[in-house]
């Protein structure tokens, strides 16, 4: 407490005030004794009408912060009550910075969680670290081969990525951080020890302070984060270092998740490649087109399958297979792989479809799979512009043939399914396609598609035949696309089974030509020319 007269003379002060303002005594001038903010507050108060003066002022005395509350006494003196506000302010400041950091961490987490791509996670980590923690940041990923993927970011600058051969031992603590073991704390590093590769291009000014912190992963280290500040900025505080660790923990977890996803996705893609339906094109003068839509949108494979095995030369039949394994999804797809491989091995026996089906049947019966399958085999050979087909159905919907004039015929072949009974009985039927005619093999996912304008109705044979009757003379791709599109539109947004279609067509133009050559030649000539 301090009593000051109208003219700024100190009238009295209590013991606490004496401790606070050592050497100040009664009669001293206020402006000699206290900092400017308090002198100014007193001057304003003494001059103006009291109502307009602010209720209290605040400022520092020594290393503490005080609120000053004035009380005017009747004789014109002012009593200044000084209340120590330091701790409350510190707490408020701590709270504000804590809130800010929590906000940053939430932003960091949601940004990192959104991506499962390793490169992007490293970009995000470097970018946000440079924005929130330092002037620049470098993310060092574990080596791939001899090179380390490095991601550089400067505050407000672009993110750059590079793969470089570096020696982690040249940065103190980096090798340990990358190994993830033994556990290392964040390291302060002497800026003079930083090799040139570790400084982002475009980093302004000499280095002031640098810390390295590990990016902890799931069991394996996700890399290390290096934070750099220029010498014009203050060094990292202990609080900032703790915050950097929290940041690194989140970034490391996200990077590990992304890396794990990438590895899993690679494995899946590799395994899936064998199960995906092949892309079909023209083989030995016969046009093939296929289309496949799995039952579930998030899957790429299912229980339907098809293949075209080209004949050894244009004078030998090519074999088309289309089938449907009971069940859906990956499990069914695995069995389709087995059937496709078995049939591939049985190709030399394709001259007798029934025998081939029986061999496949035995193979399926002795396997641990309990599922059965239906399929159609079609052997195709082009002779004098016409395609000769031998077709055999094993418990499968019979193929349909559309003639040039739009007539749709069902191929009269029937047989029993494979993988259920000790033997297969099947009947092979022959037909010939004139130029512009198409034979369609399809699975029951097409005809049993439910939907339509009024919902719940089957697409059915009638609509399939109707659709095909408009497809006389169309290229194989157009037939397949038309059928799949109509079935898909019929279904609308509803559920459906796997749907597969393969079209086998006799090309419309009589002569067969090489795509970018201009000499019309027959398929057999291509063969001879290749051999020659």
């Amino acid at each position, binding site marked *: 407490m301090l009593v000051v007269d109208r003219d700024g003379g100190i009238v009295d002060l209590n013991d606490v005030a004496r401790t606070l303002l050592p050497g100040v005594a009664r009669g001293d001038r206020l402006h000699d004794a206290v900092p400017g903010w308090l002198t100014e507050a007193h001057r304003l108060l003494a001059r103006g009408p009291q109502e307009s003066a602010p209720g209290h002022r605040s400022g520092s005395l020594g290393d503490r912060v005080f609120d000053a509350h004035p009380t005017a006494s009747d004789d014109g003196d002012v009593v200044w009550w000084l209340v120590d506000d330091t701790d409350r302010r510190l707490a408020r400041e701590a709270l504000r910075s804590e809130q800010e950091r929590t906000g940053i961490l939430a*932003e960091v987490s*949601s*940004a990192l969680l*959104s*991506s*499962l*791509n390793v*490169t*992007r996670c490293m*970009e*995000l980590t470097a*970018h*946000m670290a440079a924005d929130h923690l330092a002037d620049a940041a470098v993310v060092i990923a574990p080596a791939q081969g001899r090179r380390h993927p490095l991601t550089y970011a400067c505050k407000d600058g672009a993110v750059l990525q590079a793969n470089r051969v570096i020696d982690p031992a040249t940065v103190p603590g980096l090798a340990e951080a990358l190994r993830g073991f033994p556990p290392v704390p964040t390291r302060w590093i002497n800026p003079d020890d930083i090799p040139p590769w570790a400084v982002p291009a475009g980093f302004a000014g000499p280095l002031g302070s640098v810390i390295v912190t590990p990016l902890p992963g799931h069991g394996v280290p996700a890399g290390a984060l290096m934070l750099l500040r220029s010498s014009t900025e203050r060094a990292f505080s202990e609080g900032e270092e703790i915050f950097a660790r929290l940041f690194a923990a989140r970034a490391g977890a996200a990077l590990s998740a992304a890396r794990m*996803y*990438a590895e899993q*996705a690679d494995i899946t893609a590799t395994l899936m490649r064998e199960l995906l339906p092949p892309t079909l094109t023209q083989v030995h003068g016969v046009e093939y087109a296929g289309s496949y*839509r799995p039952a579930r*949108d*998030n899957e*790429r494979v299912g229980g339907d399958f098809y293949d075209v095995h080209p004949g050894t030369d244009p004078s030998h039949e090519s074999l088309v297979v289309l089938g449907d394994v009971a069940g859906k999804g990956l499990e069914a797809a695995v069995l389709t792989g087995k059937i496709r491989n078995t049939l591939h091995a049985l190709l030399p026996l394709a001259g007798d479809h029934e025998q081939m089906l029986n061999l496949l049947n035995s193979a399926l019966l002795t396997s641990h799979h309990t599922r059965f399958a239906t399929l159609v085999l079609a052997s195709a050979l082009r002779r004098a512009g016409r395609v000769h087909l031998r077709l055999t159905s094993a418990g499968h919907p019979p193929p349909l043939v559309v003639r040039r004039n739009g007539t749709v015929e069902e191929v009269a072949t029937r047989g029993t399914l494979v993988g259920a009974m000790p033997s297969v009985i099947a009947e092979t039927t022959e037909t010939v396609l004139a130029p512009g005619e198409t034979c369609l093999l399809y699975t029951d996912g097409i005809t049993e598609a439910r939907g*339509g*304008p*009024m*919902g*719940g109705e089957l697409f059915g044979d009638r609509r399939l035949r*109707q659709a095909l009757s*408009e*497809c006389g*003379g*169309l*290229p194989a*791709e*157009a*037939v397949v*696309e*038309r059928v799949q*599109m109509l079935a*898909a539109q019929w279904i*609308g947004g509803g559920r459906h089974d796997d749907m597969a279609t393969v079209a086998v067509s006799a090309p*419309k*133009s009589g002569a067969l*030509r090489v*795509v*970018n050559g*201009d000499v019309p030649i027959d398929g057999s000539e291509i063969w001879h020319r290749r051999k020659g």
Partner: protein
Amino acid sequence: MTAAPPAPRTRPEDGPQLSSVRERLWEAVLDGDEYAAVDVVLGARDAGLDEETLLLDVIGAVQQRVGVEWAADRISVAQEHATTAINERAVAALSGAGRRPGARPRGRVTVTCVDGEWHALPARLVAEVLRLRGWQVDYLGAQTPTPHLIAHVHRTNPAAVLLSSSLPTRLPTAHAAITACQAVGMPVMAGGAAFGEGGRYARLLGADHWARDARDAADLLEGGTAQPYTSVSRQAVDDLPHLADQEYTMVARSRPRLVKQTLADLEDRFPAMAAYDDAQRERTAEDIAHIVDFLAAALYVDDARLFAGFLTWTADILAARGVPVHSLALGLDVLSRQLHDFPRSSSLLEQGASALAGHRPGSPAAGPGSGA
């Protein structure tokens, strides 16, 4: 990404040579002769026509004409599939040439169609043009389910996703794809007739960019589509607050019931319909289902122009086929009786009916989006 502008642009190369190539390709395509089509395209390239012009001003223009000819009932829908297949082969014959001389290597982008979109050629042309200009392009094709698109984005981290859609009824699905891409921090460029005149629905659905055509898409990409470092997670209703009234949901979900009831009401009011055979009844049901689909799309974007544009386009299509257009107005009337409790639907149907009444049938555009 409409591949070709409705009116051919005046370009330096757009002389008699170009129109003759276009005419020869049109004839080959109409003939279903893929070899002739491929010969026309490769011959023109060897004669010095550059690939981008061939893709956009020849193949794209021919494809545009296919749509117009179908709308005018001069070719069948099956023929449309055939011509598209031939055009695809012509594109395939041109591709694989690598980037054009002088184009510098650029980043990686993904080009895809909205799920349920079968018109893949415009997106294919965009993909090929971007390749020529130096981009590494992943072309996912027609009918790409959104989960596949997102899995692809996670695996490849492209600079942007280019999303193509021609049918306005796919707009809700397009919206889902846009928000899904942005939630993983990927900028989206939308294109195609579905997104409306001037790309108004692309903006409405929150796409980062809208491209008028393939060249515009390539130019925009060259200008840079900075990948945002923040991802945007939002729900459909955040972009489109009018969805809160649930009218879209209701109409989309009760489509089969609405179609069935409308058909029954029409039969009550017009005894002549009782004589319809199954095929005729089915065709009528499909027409009503179309009306309901476009009504739902218009409810989704809350824009009467979308619905009215569809109705006047349909009127032109019907007129071209000699089908009386008044059946369309009757269908609207019956439908509006069922939906009288729904203010936005009622208003759309009313505005649609008056647009139809004031419409004088003309030659139809290629699609319900492209004529608007």
